[in-house]
């Protein structure tokens, strides 16, 4: 399956792309480039910002605010350098890997963007990307409301509904944390996999972030009230 690419030097990727001529459809780098230019930032043609991304989504009939496949797409393309954008280099490399060089090909790609296709490791990587991508500017944390919305969008179906629901309610209503860190974000998913049954939870030996300890406490309080 797909894994996020990137990290190798730009020139070698370019070289690879140019010399590719596998049987079947060859990758048309020029076409991909042209596509990028349509969506690139006005004042910086090497970067596609949120405006461009939204435009791209419109072209392929994806709702950029509600449909998590947008995030999957950006993840698979390999946006890494900064949040809320994708660089030209990343885009072109991504397109090459995904074998898309036209809008039409993007459109036919969409069904494969369902997260159901991802195994646990891949999903964790994607999930982490969701946090990183949604950061604003130089902030390293996310606002808790955004976190709740994101979680609901991305985790539904992947973890039990009641767990997701109760955790989101908890995050919204508690007052100690207004922002959520990456560690808290990623730990929550690991926690869902590792501790499906809250009655098994043992705080004294747990390394989970305090946020999660407090969540378990919150759930225990709710139980008592019943």
């Amino acid at each position, binding site marked *: 399956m797909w894994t996020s690419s990137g990290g190798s030097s730009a020139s070698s990727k370019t070289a690879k792309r140019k010399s590719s001529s596998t049987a079947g459809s060859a990758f048309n780098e020029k076409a991909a480039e042209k596509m990028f230019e349509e969506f690139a930032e006005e004042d910086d043609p090497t970067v596609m910002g949120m405006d461009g991304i939204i435009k791209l989504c419109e072209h392929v009939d994806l709702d950029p605010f509600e449909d998590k496949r947008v995030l999957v797409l950006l993840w698979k393309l390999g946006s890494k350098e900064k949040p809320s954008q994708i660089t030209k280099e990343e885009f072109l490399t991504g397109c090459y890997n995904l074998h898309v060089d036209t809008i039409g090909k993007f459109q036919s790609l969409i069904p494969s963007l369902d997260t159901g296709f991802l195994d646990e490791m891949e999903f964790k990587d994607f999930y982490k990307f969701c946090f990183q991508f949604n950061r604003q500017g130089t902030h*390293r944390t996310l606002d808790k409301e955004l976190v709740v919305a994101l979680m609901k969008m991305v985790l539904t179906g992947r973890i039990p509904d009641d767990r997701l629901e109760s955790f989101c309610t908890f995050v919204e209503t508690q007052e100690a944390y207004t922002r959520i*860190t*990456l*560690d*808290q974000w990623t*730990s929550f998913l*690991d*926690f869902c996999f*590792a501790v499906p049954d809250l009655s098994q939870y043992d*705080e*004294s*030996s*747990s*390394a*989970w*972030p*305090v946020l999660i*300890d407090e969540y378990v406490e919150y759930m225990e309080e709710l139980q008592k009230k019943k």
Partner: protein
Amino acid sequence: MATNVGNQRIIPLEEGWNDEIKAKAIDKLEALLNGEMKSGSMFGPKEYVQIYTTCYDMCTQRSPYNWSRELYQRHGETIEKYLTTTVLPALRDKTGQGGTILLTELRHRWLNHQIMNKWLKKFFTYLDRYYVKHHSLPTLSQAGLRCFRTKVYDEMKGETTNAILGLINDEREGKIIDKSLIKSVVELYESMGMGSLDAYNSDLEEALLNSTREYYAKKREDWINDSTPDYLIKAEEALTKESKRVDDYLNSASEMKILKVVEEEILERVEMVLLEKESSGCRALLQNDKSEDLQRMFRLFSRLENGLNPMAAIFQNFISSMGDDIVNRRQARLEGGEKDKNDDPKFVKSLISLHEKYLGVVKQDFSGHSLFQKALKDAFVEIVNKNVGQFTNAELMSTFCDRILKSGGEKLSESEVEESLDRIVQLFSYLTDKDMFAEIYRNQLAKRLLTQRSTSDDSEKLMIAKLKMQCGTQFTSKMEGMLSDLAVGSEQRSEFENRMRSVDSKLDFSVQVLTTGFWPTYKSPEVALTPEMSKCMDIFKDWHEQKHQKRKLTWVLSQGNASVRGVFGKKSYDFQVSTLQAIALDAMNNGVTMTFQELATKLNAEESILKPLMHSLSCGKYKVLIKTPPGNKINPTDTFTANPKFTSNMRKLRIPMATLESSLNTKRVEEDRTIAIEAAIVRIMKARKTLQHQQLLSEVLNQLAFFNPNPRDIKKRIEGLIDREYLERSADNAQVYNYLA
């Protein structure tokens, strides 16, 4: 008659046996033993040689006239016959007449047997030398002994043992018995083991242990209704007596076993009952200071494995409840309306006395045993950390030290001071939040030092040394720094004084330089100074700059002191005031009247400083200024003027001013703790590279000696460090951390 080669005549078996050996040796021997002859007429040397020679000859004659085998056999038969026909019946005859009679007879027969054995061996010695060895047979002595064992001992041992046990119980009940008799019979048992104690153990000791157990089980039932001290006295006595008994007439190997049985029956089985008796148990003894009884209780229960643990638990509980009482009394006083201050010497002294008293009990009554030391410690850790009211015990203890160390506090001799400090440090060692104590202590120390109200430099050093010994150098480094600043200051004072003299200033001026970091942080208000003051300060600044170019000076006017001469009509006074107060008084000189605002402008002082300042001069005990309108509160609309009617009996007066600093910087301590936790985590992870969560937690707790963070706080710091990328969670195991270089 056959003849030998040579002159020797061959002795035939029967002739040699009947005429010589039996008649002259055996019969005579038996008669002697039976008391039919005078014992004085035992075998003389001539007689003996003759018999011996006969045997010798009979054993060295050449075959078929060598009678070794026959003689050996007949030796055994002789003894056997004697035992069976003479000795055993005699013993049986003495049964049923009481133990002493039986034992006496047995002793007699045993002694006889030893004599018989000895003489027969002497006669037949030659057999022992060659025949016995050659045929790997028991020696004559062994054979004789075995004979006694099978024919007499085995038959009589049951009754003999019963006889002995009966006598022992008699002795236990207080009757006089013949100890040496029993001792002799015990020696018989020992010998019957043929080199081991097996016979003694299985035929006597085992039964003795059982009867001992029975006996003391019954005694226990009798005694158990006594008070605990009375019971224990009896128990101790019993153990002493049993020990002596073994010494008197039993085999020493039995001592441990017997004592163990007795201990089990009279101590172990009823330990909890004894300890928990309502009015005479362990708690009651502690309550009533029954030192001797406690010592006995300790002695006796130390004999048992884990015998001291229940005692130590009761001891700990007792001290805890005494401590609770002290804490509750304080609470009651506060609830009853007493002002909640950071000074409660009554409370601290009560804790100290409690500690001293039971430290003594541990040393004297419990021989300083570690279980009891720990019980005392655990109890005090619990007590000392129970805070009531708005001030922690850490603060109360620090203020207690302040009282002792400042002039005008408690009046104590040098040795009393040392003793008190010593004891406070002991209490201090039980505090969880030691860093809180340190912070408060430091603030109070600084105040003493800066207002020159410390009784003695030596006492200050002493206390710091004691704290250092408890907690290490790091704990006291700032305090020591403060003292060294003062030492340096006084060294340089004379040098600076010379400088001042050369400039001919009107003010007697000196400066104390404080190293930032050692001292608490003080506010440094930028107040407008009098010209004379400014001049002095500039002189110092120059002088200091010459000495230390790179150091930056910041004036801390809030901590300075001044002496101001006030002339009111004909009388004059010396006021000991703070620098700020001096500046205010200067502004009020010559009878001027000023409003609050005017003063604020002239002095360039903020309201938060000017208010307490003016309050101290116009609303306190010594109203050097008059405030209009009068009252206890300073309002920005007030006006002030010097008080022409001011008078006092004393010439020298100190006018205190409310402190501008908060007395305790809790925030600072919290910050320090956060830093300490993070530093510990990083230090540990750097060394270990990778560590499981639980282990990291416990190592952190180990390293933090001066406070006890809860696991959640440590976790929060870990999360912080993960965020700042000092650590990461391991990809394989979310419970493991890796250090990121």
